[in-house]
């Protein structure tokens, strides 16, 4: 069979143009199958009434209308905002821990590992530890409160405190994560700039604010991204510690979605998908902000 030189020549001529797309293709295909298509499917399902097995019925916006009247939805939304606000405390706390640990004393590597430890262990374990920590009768925290005030408080059984209790548990590993981000940033500080600042009479807090923090801006940005996303998708601690209780007072959107769509409370796939879409839209606000900032930085470079 005579060899046709045409395809070979086409490849040679366009190799440089095709190669980037060829390398991009596997990731793009995965992203399409596991991220983009499910998003579209979720939006589609949110317009249906479906138990997950039987036939789907088109109900239009009925799921969303019901959601707008659902008290649990507002509790979950309020709790998510609380998570968002308080979870951000992990950033200054992580920075403080990093500044504290960024010194040369004997055994500092061990202390750093110990501080980082909560991030390594599973969220389930963190949840269990804090559940025991708060437990009435034998929990350390309860004992402390009892010793201080004389009366016991069951944090996880009290709707006034329960969400704060879970967020406190979440802050522990998240602070460790932010600390690691900042420790890496502190390793790459420009020391001549700090010395110049010392000559310029900048000390302590002013040195931190005017010279060190600006140099840590990339770490702060990443810490911000992972903390905001982490707060919005908080699920595991709620699931382990309270399952949304008492009386749904510690609900968050992702757990509410799971409860409606997949748990014993009923298999309302359409309603769950509607919750998922709302959560997705909230996240998109932040993701868009982050991406806009990243693009702006790329341009500045």
């Amino acid at each position, binding site marked *: 069979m005579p060899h046709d030189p045409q395809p070979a020549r086409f490849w040679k001529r366009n190799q440089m143009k095709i190669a980037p797309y060829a390398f991009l293709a596997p990731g793009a295909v995965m992203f399409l199958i596991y991220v983009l298509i499910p998003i579209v499917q979720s939006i589609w399902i949110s317009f249906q009434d479906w138990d997950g097995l039987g036939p789907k019925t088109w109900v239009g916006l009925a799921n969303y209308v019901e959601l707008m009247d659902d008290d649990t939805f507002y509790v979950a939304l309020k709790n998510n905002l609380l998570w968002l606000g308080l979870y951000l405390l992990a950033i200054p706390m992580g920075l403080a821990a990093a500044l504290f640990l960024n010194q040369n004393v004997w055994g500092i590597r061990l202390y750093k590992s110990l501080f980082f430890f909560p991030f390594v262990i599973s969220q389930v374990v963190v949840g269990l530890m804090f559940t025991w920590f708060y437990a009435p009768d034998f929990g350390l925290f309860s004992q402390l409160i009892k010793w201080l005030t004389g009366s016991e408080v069951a944090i996880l059984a009290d709707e006034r405190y329960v969400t704060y209790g879970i967020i406190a548990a979440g802050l522990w590993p998240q602070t460790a994560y932010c600390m690691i981000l900042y420790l890496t940033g502190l390793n790459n500080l*420009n020391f*001549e700039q700090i010395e110049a600042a*010392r*000559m*310029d009479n*900048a000390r302590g807090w002013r040195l931190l604010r*005017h010279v060190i923090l*600006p140099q840590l801006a990339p770490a702060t940005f990443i810490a911000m991204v992972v903390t905001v996303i982490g707060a919005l998708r908080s699920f595991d601690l709620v699931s382990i510690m309270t399952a949304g209780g008492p009386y749904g007072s510690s609900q968050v959107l992702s757990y509410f979605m799971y409860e409606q769509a997949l748990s014993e409370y009923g298999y309302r796939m359409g309603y769950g998908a509607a919750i998922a879409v709302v959560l997705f839209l909230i996240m998109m606000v932040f993701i868009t902000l982050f991406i806009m900032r990243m693009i702006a930085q790329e341009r500045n470079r």
Partner: protein
Amino acid sequence: MAEVSLSNVKKDFGAISIIKGIDLEIKDGEFCVFVGPSGCGKSTLLRMIAGLEDISQGALRIGGRDMTRVGPSDRGVAMVFQSYALYPHMTVGENIGFGLRMTGHDKAEIAKRTAAAAKMLQLEPLLARKPGQLSGGQRQRVAIGRAIVRNPEVFLFDEPLSNLDASLRVQMRGEISRLHQDLGATMIYVTHDQVEAMTMADKIVVLSAGRIEQVGSPLELYHRPKNLFVAGFIGSPKMNFIAVDARPHDGGIEVTLPGGAVLQLAGSLAAAAKMTLGLRPEHASATGAGDAVLPAKVHLAEHLGSETLFFVGLADGTEIAVKADGLAPERPGDSMQIGFPARACHLFNADGQAVLNGDLTR
């Protein structure tokens, strides 16, 4: 305005001694240059004057006040760093004004003094830019502006020109010298480039391994180096060193050069000894004029236009450099007669100390 005085200043890092006892007086308004090979401690010494490094032992006085234990911002000194160390997130104006802001000056005062410093350094059109948008020379000027604006009594420069290309370096060298004349402040300048030292300094301090080898004016060091180290460090191309036999003779010194030629030098010597004779390339004569003439073979000729630099081999194989006329015709392999004028010959004993300086006066 202030003089800087160091007495027996030492610096140790653990068991390692970096600065081994420095005594130095720098007069008010003087331009003093620290030179030395890398690792000699010149930057450490500057940083000790700045207050960025602790002084392990000894005392530092600036303007008559003891500054040994005073913080860097309270010494009345300003420093220009090798990498400029500008704050990348601040504009040029903010960079220059930062020190004043940190010392609590009001906004109007900061703006006025920033504008004055910018005018002096021709930075006015750049005040709103960030350091990332500036060229190397402009960044250097901003770094100097940041020092000027604080009205320091002493300016410290840590190899400020080493990140610039050759032509810019010559230009900035001139600008710093002009600045010194305009401000009249005391300046201490660290460099490993002896051309910078020779062209800018009122006083050069040659350092080696944490000790002062010699202090003096550029010409003093050029003509009367105290030892082999200074003789070899100051001057470019560097001084030729030739092993010779020296002995007392007729109220002077007689040395035998490679190949047997004999040269009569001034000075006195107790006993015959092996010594090192030093002669700068610009004082050796390629045309054979001198008090002793040595035959030599050309190894290499560098034609620089204004002059020709010959590297020639003497009878015992020693290679020396000789500066000659730009139109000198000799080529590698040719023979030459090298003249040694006695008045330009330095003589160093076995310890490397100068016995005789060929300062061209005799």
